[in-house]
């Protein structure tokens, strides 16, 4: 009887050991904030010009980057006026923070809706093996595809009937587009890599990756239109690494 109890105990301990992820034991984390900034020279010019001439109030301190943006009136050029023509780096929503580890497999689900107004997502950062769950909420059939830049970089998917949902498993990596055969205008820009986990952040927002195993990681800050900044980090068990980053136009395009 005692041997049986010992055996059951041993099995339970073993099972506990197996089911407990190493990451949870290590419990490391990476967190921080990210913001985007436009050209310092342009910002300074607008700021100076607005102080000298504009009656409009521009609260640069309250915003990151360009503040309210700036476009231009007919008389002032771009200086100190707003008309949604200029990029408002302070309000960019599609910044991605990507943590990568070579041992990770994909499997994260990214929900995307196609409605009569179009796709509800403009940009994604995914891992190979991730699932893009596409909901066709239109009254028409659509055939999605995933395409890279090369002639053979293509993934075909079945045509989706109205109201249907399809799990598109990402097999390609690199600079991709998710498109629809029936509508050339609807495109999602996708960055895909091996062993990626991503967090979508608005400029000035925070990101966090928890329950990480000790080890080496890559950390990428990416805004599709400007490019990316790459970092490498090595985490110890229980370590919390705070990494704040600024994607400045002056810094990352070149």
């Amino acid at each position: 009887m005692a041997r049986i109890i010992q055996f059951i105990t041993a099995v339970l301990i073993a099972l506990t050991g197996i089911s407990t992820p190493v990451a949870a034991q290590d419990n490391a984390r990476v967190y921080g904030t990210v913001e985007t900034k436009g050209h310092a020279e342009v910002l300074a010019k607008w700021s100076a010009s607005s102080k000298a001439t504009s009656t409009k109030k521009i609260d640069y301190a309250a915003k990151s980057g360009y503040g309210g943006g700036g476009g231009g009136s007919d008389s002032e050029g771009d200086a100190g006026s707003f008309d949604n023509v200029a990029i408002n780096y302070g309000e960019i929503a599609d910044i991605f923070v990507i943590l990568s580890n070579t041992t990770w497999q994909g499997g994260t689900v990214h929900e995307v809706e196609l409605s009569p107004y179009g796709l509800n997502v403009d940009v994604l950062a995914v891992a190979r093996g991730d699932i893009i769950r596409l909901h066709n909420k239109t009254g028409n059939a659509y055939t999605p595809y995933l395409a890279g830049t090369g002639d053979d970089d293509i993934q075909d998917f079945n045509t989706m009937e109205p109201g249907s949902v399809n799990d598109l498993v990402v097999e390609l990596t690199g600079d991709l587009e998710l498109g629809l055969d029936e509508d050339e205008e609807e495109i999602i820009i996708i960055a895909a890599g091996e062993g990626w986990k991503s967090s979508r952040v608005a400029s000035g927002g925070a990101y966090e990756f928890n329950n990480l195993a000790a080890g080496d990681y890559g950390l990428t800050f990416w805004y599709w239109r400007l490019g990316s900044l790459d970092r490498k980090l090595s985490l110890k068990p229980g370590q919390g690494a705070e990494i704040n980053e600024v994607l400045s136009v002056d810094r990352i395009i070149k």
Partner: protein
Amino acid sequence: MKDGAKFKKPVRIWQVFFALELFQTTFLPRPTFMTIIVALTADAGKKGGDWRMYVRSLRGFSGIVLGLAVSWSWIALPVSAAVAATLSGEITVKSKRPPRNLVVYLTRQGDAAATAKPAPVQIHQRDRKFSPSRVVVVQGGAVEFVNDEEQDIDHNVFSLSKGNKFDIGLAAKGSGDQVFFTKPGIVKYFCSVHKNMEGTIFVVPSPYYAVLKKPGDFEISDVPDGDWVVNVSISHRRYKASPVRVTVAGDTEDIVVQLKKKGRK
């Protein structure tokens, strides 16, 4: 006087010869032209024409000039024929919504790179727009980005496209910056200041190309004789072209290049 009288006759023959030469260059293929010359020669022989007149005619200054001119015409003929060929055909695709904005281009078989550097293509920045936003540049050639805004508006032009990354920095009104493109492909470019300013540059490997808004008929002129590959650059990633090999020897027609959806047969 007698010689002079004899001299006049070959001059008239030369005039006919030149007229034919011009006519041939413009309208006739070479074999037809040669047939006419042979026929005229035979005819002249029948009528008792003295071909020594031809030699005599070359003694005088006029003869030398004519001789040189004829030599030139014979040398120039193959050259003019080589650069005047037009290659035409059709780009086809089986699709209800065919891709737009194509560039049909030729590459020499076994020689991908263009040798001559053409003048820079200008893209203007005015009213916070690139104009034209879509251009074609021959590999090795340049685009000049000109900020000709009327007001004091700064712009920037940059691209992250693989193989053709660039960034001209912040460019003030009145500036002009040249960027050279060394790798064939499609270059997406943007202004980092203004959100709606973006465009596409097709970098093609030879100066022989045609721009199409949609699949259909195309024509590429001044193509030298030789072996070429006809290909299509498409910005829509869903499609690819099936390149066609063609031998150009004079005008060449009915070339058909098919566009296909990638991954589907």
